[in-house]
């Protein structure tokens, strides 16, 4: 079931009298139980898009439907949205954790009794019960973020918009929030997630959409995207150096050697290589998988370390090939 369907969103702002296109033509769809990582460099149009979906920014052109309803025309459609927006904690700092949940529950249309019950359940689930009476400003940043997530979930929304939910958190708090997001997604909610921490996006998302200069440049399932960008190279690390005989045999297979590591570019030759190496002690065998960071940098104009290494190896391979010929 499609929870979010945004079609042809466009938004321009005026800066010093000139129109600047923040979002050019963005369409997004997220089904129930799906996590879409919405990635892009700073100023690419991520936050503007999220805010257009939440009805906080009016698009110049385009439509948004949440469970078939337009949030600009029917404010009731907003009941289906929970949001943790960027840069702040979205909470009342002078109220306690429990009071925030009580208040926002009613603001989202729940009765005070239901809001309170759901609030207590969320405090329990997010491990915040011992802090229920602590005012928000006395909570740690990680706890504030967990509470902001709980507040976004108070009315059990089918769509959750998370704009940089792990920004500024330490390692432990990041892990905690990450685990919570995974749990929330498993409940069948549609989640739109923006983050600069691409390892988190890779771990949590089912699909990835990358936006650059206001346009979506790729939208693909996370697995497929990584597969597309991954190389076919195998690297075999050995515990001991290679002797001259094995060295030449490997070169004949088209492999290259750097220190104690062998790189093989034709995957069909892997077992031939292993026969050559037998019985030398192996440290590890790895297939050259791309990660989301490399893909992101490649698509948005930057270059990842892994990519540079891969290119260096490719150059080495071509040189070796030329030498052999």
């Amino acid at each position, binding site marked *: 079931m499609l929870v979010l369907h945004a079609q042809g969103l466009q938004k321009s702002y005026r800066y010093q009298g000139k129109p600047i296109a923040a979002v050019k033509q963005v369409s997004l769809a997220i089904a129930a139980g799906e996590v879409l990582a919405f990635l892009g460099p700073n100023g690419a149009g991520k936050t503007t898009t999220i805010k257009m979906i939440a009805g906080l*920014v009016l698009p110049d052109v385009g439509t948004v439907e949440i469970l078939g309803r337009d949030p600009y025309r029917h*404010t009731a459609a907003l009941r289906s*949205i929970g949001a943790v*927006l960027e840069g702040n904690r*979205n909470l009342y700092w002078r109220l306690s954790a429990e009071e925030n949940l009580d208040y926002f529950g*009613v603001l989202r249309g729940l009765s*005070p009794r239901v809001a309170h019950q759901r609030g207590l359940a969320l405090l329990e689930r997010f491990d915040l019960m011992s802090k229920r009476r602590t005012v928000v400003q006395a909570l740690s940043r990680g706890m504030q973020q967990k509470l902001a997530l709980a507040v976004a979930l108070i009315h059990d929304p089918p769509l959750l918009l998370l704009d940089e939910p792990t920004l500024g958190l330490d390692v432990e708090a990041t892990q905690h929030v990450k685990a919570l997001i995974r749990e929330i997604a498993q409940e069948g909610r549609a989640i739109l997630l923006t983050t600069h921490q691409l390892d988190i996006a890779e771990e949590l998302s089912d699909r990835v959409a990358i936006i650059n200069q206001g346009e979506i440049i790729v939208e693909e399932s996370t697995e497929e995207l990584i597969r597309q960008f991954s190389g076919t190279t195998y690297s075999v690390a050995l515990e001991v150096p290679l002797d001259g005989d094995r060295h030449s045999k490997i070169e004949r297979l088209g492999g290259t050697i750097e220190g104690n590591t062998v790189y093989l570019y034709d995957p069909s030759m892997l077992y031939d290589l292993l026969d050559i190496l037998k019985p030398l002690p192996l440290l590890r065998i790895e297939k050259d998988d791309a990660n989301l960071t490399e893909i992101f940098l490649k698509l948005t104009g930057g270059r990842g370390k892994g990519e540079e290494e891969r290119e260096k190896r490719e150059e080495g391979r071509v040189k070796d090939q030329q030498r052999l010929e």
Partner: protein
Amino acid sequence: MMFHLFVAEFKRSWIQLLRYPTEVISAIVVTTIVFYGLFLSARYVAGPGVQFGDRMESIIIGYALWSLAMFIMADITGGLQREAQTGTLEQIFISPFGAPKVFLVRALAGLTIQVALNLVILVILMVLTGTRLAFPPMLLLPFVSILMGVYGLAFILGSIALRVKQVQQLLGICQFVFLFLLTVPVESWAGSFKFFAMLLPMVPGAGLLRDLMARDQTLNVGLWAIALVNGFVYLALGLLLFRYAERETKRQGKLAGY
């Protein structure tokens, strides 16, 4: 549903107020000290033998109304600015109630606080100056018309706060305009001046309140009707502007930030 929202807003505003009482106490102390300073200066200028009569009562009523109006204005516009910074403003705009409704209910819920604070100020002023004011139940009628005007102006200023975020300077200028509107006894004017005064926000209601509380007069129903229409027009104007500002701010994508 709206009742639940009212109760939630009522609780939210009282909890936030009582959790940091020093802010409230200092607001009361400063407001009363300023008036007492003015009172002592006026007595010095007038000389020791002069009796102010009902004029002192009139001025106290005007001053208490002014401080009430300023508290409400600061509450609404300051609240909007603070919430734009902490991110709660956007959460309000995602509410299925719609932002204008939430802010109106919020203003009504906060009214209990503002009235309570200003009653304290009024009582302190009466004790300090030795004046006696009448509190006939009828005073609620012109009081409502004044409140409509105050909220109307607060929403107008709130609309500006939504658009430009910084309204402290404007709020400072408003203080003096409000002091004029609420303390000058335009009801004692005559002719076309009085007619134009009736068009100004809060003015007809403030005059009626002085008649009831300081001059022990009965309520002039005709004037009250004018005061009510006046309050209604300013409130409607404020709410319409707020709706417009909401739409424009969303169009420009400037709801958050400061």
